[in-house]
C-alpha cells in the first residue's frame, strides 16, 4: 500500500470511529446507580429497600441559604426562588417556611375538625367553648393577638393553629418576614428533587437550575446563594473525581505517546496504536446498547479499566516485527499466542455473564465484545496499515544488554515458594478490616462541605439521611392506622431523647377511622348553637359573629373522611405523597427521622410490631449490598480463573507449560493483594477490578516469555514488547496512584504494583532460560 493510501486508510478508520463514537454517545444512557448492579429485587420489601437506598426522601433534598443582603431583601429573594422552582418539573417540593394553613383550599378548611386532634380530648360543649372564648378575648387583648385575624369567626377554637403547629417540624427555623431564617441571618430554603440523590448528572442539573432561577430574580446580584445536600455533594465529588482522573489520564497518555516514540522512532505507530482499543471500546458500547439499552456508569468505568489489556495487542505486533518481515508475516507469527490470550480472557469473562447480576453481565458483554473486536482489528486491519519500512527493535544495543542481563539472572527454584509463604503470612497478619464496604469513603466529600451540610440540615430541621422508619400495611389507610398505633411509642422515644423528631405520615393525615371518630363527636347545628349561646353569655363577642363557625362544623359533620389521594392534591399533599408509596399492591409509609441518638432503641420497634414497622439503616443496608455484590464478583472471578486454567491447559495440551504461564500470574496477583493488605489497605470492588486487569496483562507477559522462539533475536523482541507494555502500564497507573482521591489511588496503585509483580515473576518463572544463548 502506498504511503498516501495508507494515510488515507488510517484517516478513514479514525473517521469511522469518530462517527461511531458520535452515534454511541447519542444513544447511550448511563446510569450512575449502584443499585443497577445488584441482583433484581425478588419481593416488594426488597424493592422498597432498593428504592430508598441512596434515593430516600432525605437524600433528594437540596438545602439552600441566601445571604449578603438585608433581611427583607433576602425574604423577597427566597419567595421569588420558591415561586420559580415550584414551576420546575425537576423539583417535587420547595419550601421556605412561607406556607401556612391559610393556603389550604377553602373547601378543605372544614376538614380541620377531622384532622386536628382537639376532638380526641374535648367536646364542643358550653364549658369547653366558654373557656376557648375567654382565651380568645385574652388573645384579642394581647398585642400578640393580631395574628388571629379574620379566621377567628370561622375558627374560635383555633384548629388551624393546632394544625399549623402539628405540621411544623419540631426544629423548624425561625420565621422572619414570613420565611425561614438561620441564626446567622441567612434565608433558608429546602427543595426535593424528582431525580434520585445518586443520579449525579440530574443532581448537578438541579443545582444549576436553582442557580439559574436565583440569578434571574430581580436584584439577585446583591445577594448570594449557597447550595448543599447529599445529592449536590455527591455530584460535586463525582465531577471532581472525573476531572482528576481526566487530568492524570491526559498526562499518562502524553507519557505513553513519548514512550512509543522512543521505543519505535515512528510517528505512524502513534496514529495506529490506539485504533484497535478504540474500535473495541466502541463495539463493546454498541453491544451493551443493543442488548441492555443502556449502561451503568460503574460498568463503563470497570469495563474501560479491564480493556487496558487490549492496548498490548498492537504493541506486540510493533515489537515483534523482524527487519525482513512484512507486517502480515509478523502478525501471523504472533497471532496464535495473541488469540490464545484473547480467547481465554473471553472464556474467563463468560463467568460474569452467567452471574445473574445485570451490572456484571453488562461488564462481560462489553469486555468480551471489545476484546474480540480489538483482537480482530489487530489481526486483520492493522497489518495493512503499517509502514513497509520498520526498525527491528532487537538490534538495539540496549535491548541486547537488557536481555543478556535478564537471561543470566539467577532463578532460585525456592524463590516462588518463599514469595508465596511471605504473601500468605502478610495476608494472615494484615490489619483489619479486610473489606471496604463504604463506597463513599473511596471518594470522600471535602470536610468543609460536609460540615456546612450538617449545619444547614440542623438549621432546617431536615431529616436524617441515614435512618428511615418503614411502615408496611396493605392499604394507604392501613399505613396511617399503623402510624397512629406507634405514635405513643414515638412520643416516648422523643421524650427519652432516642430521637429528636419523627415525621409520621399520620402527622399529615389521620386514618379514616380516627377522622370518623372525631366527626362523630361534632355536635349538630342545634346543639352547637345552644352551647355557643351559653358560652357567649358573659363574653362580649358581637351577636352572630361566629356564624361561619357554625357553618363549618355543620359542613364537617357531613364530609366524607379525607383520603390520602384527595389530601395529596392539596398544597401540603406533596409531603404526604413522598411518604406513602405503593409497590405491587403493598403499601409502605416512610417516616423520616431527625437527630437519631439511639438507633438500637428505635430498631426495637420491629419486634413490637411483628415486623410491620422497621428501622432502615440505609448506610448499613447499602454496605450489605456492596458486600453481597462483592461476593458475586468474587464468585465470578473464581469461576473465571478456573475457566482460564482450563482454556490455557487445553490450548497447550501440556500442563507443564500451562503451569509456567499460570503460576507466575497467580502468585503475582496474590503478592499484589498481600502488599496492599500489609500496608493496611481494606480492599474494595475497585481493587478487585484493578487486580483483574493486572492479571490479564500478566497473562500476556507469561505467555510471550514462555513462547518457544527460533532465536535470541526473537526473544529480544519479546522482551522489548513486554518492557514497552510494562512501562506503559506502570506510567499510566502509577500516575493515578499519585492522586489524592482514594478510588483513583486504589486502581492506580493496585495495577502498577500488580504489573510489576507480574513482570518480575514472569521473568523468573515463565521466561525460558535457554533463550539466553
Amino acid at each position, binding site marked *: 500500500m502506498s504511503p498516501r493510501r495508507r494515510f488515507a486508510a488510517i484517516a478513514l478508520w479514525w473517521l469511522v470511529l469518530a462517527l461511531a463514537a458520535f452515534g454511541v454517545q447519542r444513544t447511550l444512557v448511563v446510569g450512575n446507580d449502584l443499585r443497577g448492579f445488584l441482583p433484581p429485587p425478588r419481593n416488594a420489601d426488597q424493592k422498597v429497600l432498593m428504592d430508598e437506598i441512596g434515593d430516600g426522601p432525605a437524600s433528594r433534598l437540596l438545602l439552600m441559604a441566601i445571604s449578603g443582603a438585608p433581611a427583607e431583601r433576602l425574604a423577597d429573594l427566597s419567595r421569588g426562588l420558591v415561586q420559580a422552582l415550584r414551576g420546575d418539573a425537576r423539583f417535587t417540593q420547595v419550601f421556605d417556611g412561607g406556607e401556612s394553613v391559610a393556603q389550604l383550599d377553602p373547601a378543605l378548611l372544614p376538614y380541620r375538625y377531622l384532622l386536628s386532634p382537639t376532638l380526641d380530648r374535648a367536646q364542643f360543649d358550653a364549658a369547653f367553648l366558654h373557656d376557648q372564648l375567654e382565651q380568645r378575648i*385574652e388573645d384579642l387583648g*394581647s*398585642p400578640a393577638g*393580631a395574628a388571629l385575624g379574620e379566621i377567628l*369567626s370561622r375558627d374560635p377554637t383555633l384548629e388551624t393553629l393546632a394544625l399549623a403547629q402539628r405540621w411544623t417540624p419540631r426544629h423548624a427555623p425561625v420565621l422572619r418576614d414570613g420565611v425561614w431564617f438561620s441564626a446567622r441571618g441567612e434565608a433558608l430554603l429546602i427543595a426535593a428533587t424528582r431525580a434520585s440523590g445518586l443520579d449525579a448528572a440530574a443532581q448537578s442539573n438541579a443545582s444549576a437550575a436553582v442557580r439559574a432561577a436565583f440569578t434571574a430574580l430581580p436584584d439577585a446580584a446583591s445577594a448570594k446563594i449557597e447550595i448543599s445536600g447529599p445529592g449536590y455533594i455527591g455530584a460535586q465529588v463525582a465531577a471532581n473525581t472525573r476531572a482528576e482522573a481526566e487530568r492524570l489520564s491526559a498526562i499518562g497518555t502524553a507519557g505513553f505517546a513519548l514512550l512509543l516514540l522512543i521505543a519505535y522512532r515512528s510517528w505512524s505507530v502513534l496514529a495506529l496504536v490506539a485504533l484497535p482499543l478504540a474500535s473495541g471500546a466502541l463495539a463493546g458500547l454498541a453491544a451493551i446498547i443493543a442488548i441492555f439499552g443502556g449502561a451503568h456508569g460503574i460498568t463503563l468505568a470497570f469495563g474501560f479499566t479491564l480493556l487496558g489489556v487490549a492496548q498490548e495487542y498492537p504493541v506486540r505486533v510493533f515489537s515483534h516485527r523482524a527487519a525482513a518481515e512484512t507486517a502480515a508475516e509478523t502478525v501471523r507469527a504472533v497471532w496464535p499466542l495473541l488469540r490464545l490470550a484473547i480467547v481465554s480472557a473471553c472464556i474467563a469473562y463468560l463467568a460474569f455473564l452467567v452471574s445473574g447480576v445485570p451490572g456484571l453481565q453488562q461488564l462481560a458483554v462489553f469486555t468480551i465484545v471489545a476484546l474480540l473486536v480489538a483482537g480482530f482489528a489487530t489481526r486483520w486491519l492493522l497489518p495493512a496499515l503499517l509502514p513497509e519500512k520498520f526498525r527491528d527493535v532487537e538490534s538495539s544495543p540496549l535491548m541486547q544488554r537488557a536481555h543478556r542481563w535478564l537471561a543470566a539472572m539467577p532463578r532460585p527454584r525456592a524463590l516462588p515458594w518463599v514469595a508465596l509463604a511471605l504473601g500468605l503470612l502478610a495476608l494472615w497478619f494484615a490489619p483489619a478490616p479486610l473489606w471496604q464496604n463504604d463506597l463513599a469513603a473511596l471518594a470522600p466529600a471535602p470536610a468543609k462541605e460536609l460540615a456546612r451540610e450538617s449545619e444547614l440540615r440542623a438549621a432546617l430541621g431536615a431529616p436524617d439521611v441515614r435512618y428511615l422508619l418503614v411502615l408496611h400495611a396493605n392499604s394507604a389507610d392501613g399505613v396511617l392506622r399503623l402510624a397512629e398505633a406507634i405514635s405513643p411509642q414515638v412520643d416516648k422515644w422523643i421524650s427519652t431523647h432516642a430521637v429528636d423528631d419523627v415525621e409520621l405520615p399520620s402527622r399529615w393525615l389521620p386514618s379514616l377511622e380516627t377522622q370518623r371518630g372525631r366527626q362523630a363527636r361534632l355536635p349538630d347545628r342545634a346543639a352547637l348553637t345552644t352551647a355557643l349561646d351559653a358560652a357567649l353569655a358573659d363574653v362580649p363577642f358581637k351577636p352572630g*359573629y361566629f356564624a361561619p363557625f357554625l357553618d363549618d362544623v355543620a359542613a364537617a359533620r357531613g364530609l366524607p373522611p379525607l383520603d390520602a389521594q384527595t389530601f395529596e392534591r392539596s398544597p401540603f399533599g406533596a409531603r404526604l405523597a413522598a411518604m406513602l408509596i405503593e409497590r405491587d399492591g403493598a403499601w409502605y409509609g416512610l417516616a423520616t427521622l431527625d437527630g437519631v441518638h439511639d438507633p438500637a432503641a428505635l430498631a426495637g420497634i420491629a419486634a413490637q410490631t411483628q415486623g410491620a414497622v422497621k428501622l432502615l439503616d440505609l448506610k448499613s443496608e447499602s454496605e450489605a449490598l456492596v458486600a453481597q455484590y462483592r461476593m458475586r464478583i468474587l464468585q465470578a472471578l473464581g469461576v473465571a480463573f478456573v475457566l482460564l486454567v482450563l482454556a490455557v491447559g487445553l490450548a497447550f495440551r501440556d500442563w507443564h507449560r500451562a503451569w509456567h504461564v499460570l503460576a507466575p500470574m497467580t502468585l503475582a496477583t496474590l503478592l499484589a493483594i498481600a502488599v496492599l493488605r500489609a500496608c493496611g489497605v481494606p480492599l474494595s470492588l475497585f481493587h478487585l477490578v484493578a487486580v483483574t486487569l493486572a492479571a490479564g496483562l500478566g497473562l500476556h507477559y507469561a505467555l510471550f516469555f514462555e513462547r518457544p522462539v527460533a532465536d535470541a533475536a526473537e526473544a529480544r523482541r519479546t522482551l522489548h514488547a513486554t518492557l514497552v507494555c510494562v512501562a506503559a502500564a506502570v506510567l499510566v497507573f502509577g500516575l493515578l496512584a499519585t492522586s489524592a482521591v482514594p478510588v483513583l489511588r486504589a486502581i492506580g496503585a493496585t495495577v502498577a504494583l500488580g504489573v510489576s509483580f507480574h513482570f518480575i515473576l514472569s521473568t523468573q518463572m515463565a521466561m525460558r532460560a535457554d533463550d539466553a544463548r
Partner: protein
Amino acid sequence: MFLPALILLAATSSQTPDAAALIASLKRPVPATTAYTEVRFLHQLTRPLVLHGELDYGGANKLGKRVDAPYRESTQVEGDGVTVTRDGRAPRHFDLERAPELKVLMGGFSALLGGDANALTSLYTIALVDNAPNWTLTLVPRDAGLSKHLREFVIDGTAADPRCFSLQQANGDSSVMLLGALAATTLPQPPTSAALAAICRATQ
C-alpha cells in the same frame, strides 16, 4: 412686668423645639417601669376591652407587658422572640415578626425611651403638635408592610413625660394606653375614643 414675660418667652422657646429635640428629652434610664390602663376598641366585640397592668422597658429590644386585670398575662419581648405566659398554661413562644402590633410598640418604646429620634424618623414620618406644655407626636409608618397593619401611632405627653400611646390599626380597631399617673384615672362608662383623647390631652 417684663420678667414674667421673659420667663414665659424663655420657657416657650425651650418648650417648642422640633420633634427630634422633644424625643431626645424623653430619654429614660433603664429599666423604666410604668403602670398603664389600656382600652382596646375591637370590631369583634360589643364593648371595649379594658386592661390594667405594668409596662417594663429593659433597654433596647427588651420589653415586658404585664396584664394584672381582668386576667393575668405576661408578654416578654427579647430580641426577636416573644414569650406569652398565662396563668395555668404553658408559655407560648413565637417570633416578633408574627405580632406586628407588638413590634411597633417595641420599636416605639426603644426609640422614645432611648431618646433616639433618628430611629423613629427612619420608620415613621413624624408630625409634632405643640400646645406647651402638652404635645402630640403623630407617627405614620413609612414601610408599606407595616402600614398594612398600622395606620398611625400617636403619643401624647406633657413636658418630658409621655402620657398616652394610641395605636390606630388599619382594620379600624384601635387601642389607647394611659401611662403612669393617668393609669389611675377613672374611665367613663363605657369608655369612648373621644373621652380618652380628652383625658390624654387635658392640661394638668
